[in-house]
């Protein structure tokens, strides 16, 4: 510092943020994901405001199916946080049950999504049909990819837990997997009303 009499700083003080590296890293990654989905929402708003006519979501899309999907994803969010709770309580069986449920619900979400896409393709609605379907397929598709990524990480967690149950970083890693999974759920919480109900 160029201040004249530099006050002697305590040299023992270890200047860290007190947040474990992994958690800070995951939150930073989620910040960039927020910007990614914010761009998609901005694109949706710009295209919708400038479009001469825009079909309302519930006219064209299958709302009951999407509601089911929302419930599936929320439940998987809950089972994910319960898996973290079981990991903290060192209840191994409980952890496997919960992480297994989360992975299963993730797959259920994808199956329902595939069924929905199938119905759309069957009726001849493709991304190139019109701007509404382009936005719909791109946003839900990119979200679906993130769900697949989340499932992959959860599967890795389940396999990793077998030998590393006592690993000092295990509980932290379950928490970070949970953070990402909850984020994917929050994106869908905004995507669902945004596309289907407005």
């Amino acid at each position: 510092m160029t201040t004249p009499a530099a006050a002697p700083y305590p040299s023992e003080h270890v200047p860290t943020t007190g947040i474990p590296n992994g958690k800070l890293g995951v939150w930073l990654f989620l910040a960039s994901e927020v910007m990614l989905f914010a761009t998609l929402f901005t694109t949706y708003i710009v295209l919708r405001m400038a479009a001469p006519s825009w079909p309302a979501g519930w006219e064209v899309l299958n709302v009951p199916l999407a509601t089911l999907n929302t419930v599936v994803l929320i439940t998987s969010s809950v089972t994910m946080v319960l898996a973290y709770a079981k990991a903290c309580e060192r209840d191994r069986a409980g952890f496997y049950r919960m992480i297994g449920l989360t992975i299963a619900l993730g797959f259920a979400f994808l199956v329902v999504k595939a069924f929905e896409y199938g119905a759309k393709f069957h009726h001849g609605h493709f991304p190139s049909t019109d701007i509404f379907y382009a936005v719909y397929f791109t946003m839900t598709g990119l979200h679906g990819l993130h769900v697949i990524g989340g499932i992959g990480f959860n599967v890795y967690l389940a396999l990793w837990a077998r030998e590393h149950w006592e690993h000092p970083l295990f509980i932290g890693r379950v928490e970070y997997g949970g953070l990402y999974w909850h984020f994917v759920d929050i994106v869908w919480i905004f995507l669902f009303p945004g596309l289907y109900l407005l």
Partner: protein
Amino acid sequence: MAVPHSEPRSSEHGSGFIDKYVFSVDHKVIGLQYFFTSCFFLIVGFAMIMLLRWQLAFPGQPLPLIGRLLPMTWAPDGILMPEFYNQLGAMHGTIMVFLGIVPLGVGAFGNYILPLQIGAPDMAFPRLNMMSYWLYLPGGMLMLLSFVLPGGAAQSGWTSYAPLAIVNPGQTVWLLAMVVIITSSLLGAVNFIVTTLNMRAAGLTLGRLPIFVWAQLVTAILLLLAFPPLEAAAVLQLMDRIAGTSFYLPAGLVVAGESLKVAGGGQPLLWQHLFWFLAHPEVYVLILPSMGIVAEIIANGTRKPIFGYTEIVASMIFIGAMSFIVWAHHMFLSGMSPRLSNFFLVTTMIISVPSVAVLTCLVWSLKGGSIRFTTPMLFSLAFLPLFGIGGLTGLPLGLTVTDIYLHDTYYVIGHFHYVVVTGTIIALMGGTYYWFPKWFGKQLNDFWGKIHFWGTAICMNGIFFPMFIQGLAGVQRRLYDPTAQLHNLSTQPLNVVSSVSAWLLFLFQIPFLVNIVYTIFKGKRCEENPWRATTLEWACASPPPHGNFERPPRVYRGPYEYSTPRAREDWTPQHVPS
């Protein structure tokens, strides 16, 4: 007092050649991998523009010597095709920005020097660091490969404006490579921020961080928050090209005679907004690390603390924040509503102030110093006036009215090359000479360094100063054959001047490259801290062993304690107890 890091040291650091040098998780090895790969890409990008400059200087005439070597589709009997010309132009921009300077400034210098300057044994996530390099390399190779893939490389400028980028061939591979490169930069940014915040040595508070570390922190935040919008926009453009959607295509387009069968409803301006939302923070990502390097070298070269440490750091943070609000000054004439231009005019003028403040503080640092004209100092001193010209010529472009005439002319090309080439690249060259003893334990030959400096500085000005004159005469940019339009004929001789300077500039890089290679293998070892610098990276051996510091260092004072009164020597390192 163990340095706090939650990842247990990756004790099983491989000893074989592959683990040690190819798939290494040591930030120093990854830093050097980034260094040599980005130098390779800088040379490739430079070679492309040297080809292109032949067509600009002597339009339509066959290339001497290498003309016949080029394949028929690119240059039939030596004369460059317009498609190939556009590919060279677009890929020159892309390679230099995304594969050359950012990986060199952030990947190479950041990866190697940042952990050392904060006293950390390694990056916070070593494997993630390795992964970010091994995403960058395939992304770069894919970008180069696009030249030979069907459809050729991207040919709608590095800005890839829709609808041209959707109608033209070659953009799909560019978009895929961009998504890979962006992911690599994102991972790197996460790593940098966590390392800087969490793994500093004891006593190294934020106020004692070297300016280079501050620059890398702000750069990492910009990369983290600005790159995803381009990734989303690139995915949308990829959907437009492959899935037939029309995010950026309005209805009723007629291309080459028949109407485009597209649903329509999209907007070309949407791409420009999203692209420049990234690209302006991106250009600050290009300049911030170089400001950090210049500040380090000037403090060391003048044997005096940097003048206005807080001002420089505050200006960098202010630049980082403001860089997100100025993007549309690239779009004054793009069909955006004129009232919006007034808003972005004001924000653009506001952001020019912190850049001037940083430059003023750096120049004021020379006052009262004892300036040594070593090679790194020559580069850093040359950075000041030349970056000044780059900044000043931004004024007429940032002002809406004068931008009407100067937009999309060679004036713009002169402006941003003065900032990027005579600003960033000169600073990075200076940084290479400054930290070479730390990387390889040997010092680059000073005599050849000075020849390289004078040759580079003069030729760079020879290339870019005539562009201002061409810009004022109204020569548009990205013209395949400038002589096809009457108003460009009067300044056509300047194209020859620029082209010859560009080729000479390449010749002057040869001593630099030879100097590097020779010194690595045959250079004699120099002392641990040849520049007598006070920052923490000189507190360990050069090149530092794995794990950097034997004992985690402790920091007792600010980064630039040179010539403190009552001190025995004119420098007191950070880690020495007073």
